[in-house]
């Protein structure tokens, strides 16, 4: 009798169980947890920004280039601005631009990948060649060329990075779709008389979400990498934002004098911790999804 009761309809669906197992595996992954803690820290500071910092990140004072571990914990820069406040508030711009660019690239890449993977044929081949051509150029070079042509702004940055990511994401999605399209449920849906868009977005898409999420996290790491590099070169986020890469660009010339390392080292460590955090999350996700 008990066995019958246990098999009653209250039994959670198979998908639910699978999802719960995935979450449990993620919570067991030390890399995933550590990554999330780091990223969470920066998300917090990106949201509260200058409201909670010990000083105003843009306020200039007369104590120029004060050494760290004194009144100003991390010292001040050449305009007397507090480095600690600037490092904390510096998360805001990049944490807005990089995720938006990633989202754009993942959305575009998912649509293109689904369509090319499902239909294949000429468009598929052509896209493959275009991706090869784009891969022949480093992201930063394409972005610099495009940004010079269109003009630097946050919107340009998001669109350019999103546009370069689209074919790259599309390739991953396409590979996942190719593995799915021959499984029984796809021909079954076709025989049922479902139309192609329905099959692609309602039948196949939920089954390839795992690889898409992993790809999205990996891309987010690259997006931060790209925004940081472009900003350092002067083609990204524009002053007077206390962005990390801008701080480095403004102060690195002081290093040649053999001193004043704190104006660049702390923002550098901030960028490093953020990308490492995102990559730890991506690594944890990859191991669980590809299990």
């Amino acid at each position, binding site marked *: 009798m008990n066995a019958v009761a246990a098999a009653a309809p209250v039994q959670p669906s198979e998908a639910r169980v699978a999802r719960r197992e995935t979450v449990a595996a993620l919570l067991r992954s030390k*890399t995933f947890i550590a990554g999330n803690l780091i990223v969470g820290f920066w998300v917090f500071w990106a949201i509260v920004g200058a409201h909670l910092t010990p000083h105003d990140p843009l306020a200039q004072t007369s104590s120029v280039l004060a050494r760290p571990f004194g009144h100003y914990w991390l010292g001040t820069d050449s305009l007397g601005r507090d480095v600690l406040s600037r490092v904390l508030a510096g998360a805001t711009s990049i944490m807005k631009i990089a995720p938006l660019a990633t989202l754009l690239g993942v959305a575009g890449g998912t649509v293109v990948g689904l369509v090319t993977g499902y239909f294949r044929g000429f468009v598929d081949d052509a896209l493959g*060649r*275009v991706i*090869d*051509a*784009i*891969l*022949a*150029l*480093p*992201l*930063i*070079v*394409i972005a*610099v*060329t*495009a940004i*010079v*042509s*269109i*003009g630097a702004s946050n919107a340009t940055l998001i669109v350019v990075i999103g546009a370069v990511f689209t074919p790259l994401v599309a390739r991953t999605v396409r590979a996942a779709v190719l593995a799915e399209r021959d499984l029984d449920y796809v021909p079954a849906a076709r025989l049922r008389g479902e139309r192609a868009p329905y099959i692609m977005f309602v039948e196949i898409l939920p089954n390839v979400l795992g690889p898409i999420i992993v790809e999205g996290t990996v891309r987010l*790491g690259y997006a931060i*990498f790209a925004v*940081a*590099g472009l900003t*350092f*070169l*002067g*083609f990204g986020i524009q002053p007077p934002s206390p962005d990390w*890469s801008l701080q*480095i660009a403004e102060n*690195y010339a002081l*290093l*040649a004098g*053999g*001193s004043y*390392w704190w104006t*660049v*080292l702390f923002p*550098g*460590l901030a*960028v*490093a911790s953020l*990308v*490492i955090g*995102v*990559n*730890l999350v991506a*690594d944890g996700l990859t191991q669980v999804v590809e299990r």
Partner: protein
Amino acid sequence: MGRFLLKRLGLALITLVLLSMIVFSLAQLLPGNVGRNILGPFASQQQVDQTNHELGVDRPIVVQYGRWVSHLLHGNLGNSLEYQGSSVAGLLGPSLVNSLKLAALAFLICVPLSILGGIAAALRQGRVTDRSITIGGLSLTAVPEFVTAIVLIVIFGVVFKLLPTTAQAPPGSSFLVQIKYLLLPALALTAVLFGYIARIARAGVIEALDADYTRTAYLKGLDTRTVMFRHVLRNALLPTIAVVATQTGYLIGGLVVIEKLFNYPGIGQRIYIAAQNKDFTMLESGVLVIGIVYLVATLVADTLYSLLNPRIRYGAAE
């Protein structure tokens, strides 16, 4: 093998044509009138029209593309808009050589180091060595080059004062002094590649260690050394070699940032300056040269791979 390489060569040529189209159309996005940009706001409309006609920019796009390509094929990259009268080829050539020096040093440090790292990680799979090489490499790969470079400058240039903080040695310096100046930028570039190459090498070694042929080699009584060198590493490092070349693109992207940071006159610095000054003939050619370098590197890797891999050497795989 011949057929395999011929096919690769064909694909590379198609990619090159597409690449030239992408670069050309990017340059077409430039807002404003070319003649007006050159002559300035005070020139008459007639002069502007005449300049445009002389430059050929008033013709249909397809005709312009054709002219551009035919000039390229004759080795004529045009004149720099910024340095009036200097040919782009004359300016790009020396910069490319400088960049190749830096890139070569980075590769020389990076490839042996990361392959050794990957092998060490694979042999200690799942233990502390493995975790620290994998996570450390992953982190190094993820961090932008200029950030790694800043940390390296602070440590070696500012705190210990061991190495110079700029990359250009004084003119007439000996070979060793030049290398000393290039060491920090090369190390920064190495850091980005290390994690990636080590990861591939690690995966290759783990797969080869699990393979039947390795067990057979052990069972027939060969000592560990012979098994490792003749059976495991030979098979494991094939994919690694193929992957190293695909990283050239990544490396050149890093050059743009690193050369600016260390004020080193390479092709990345050229592209950066051209972009800043909207010198489009220079930018176009610089980007195209980078693409060609990448394609050549990929072809070399394919050739090397097919020479080392008997399955392709004897034409069984194709």
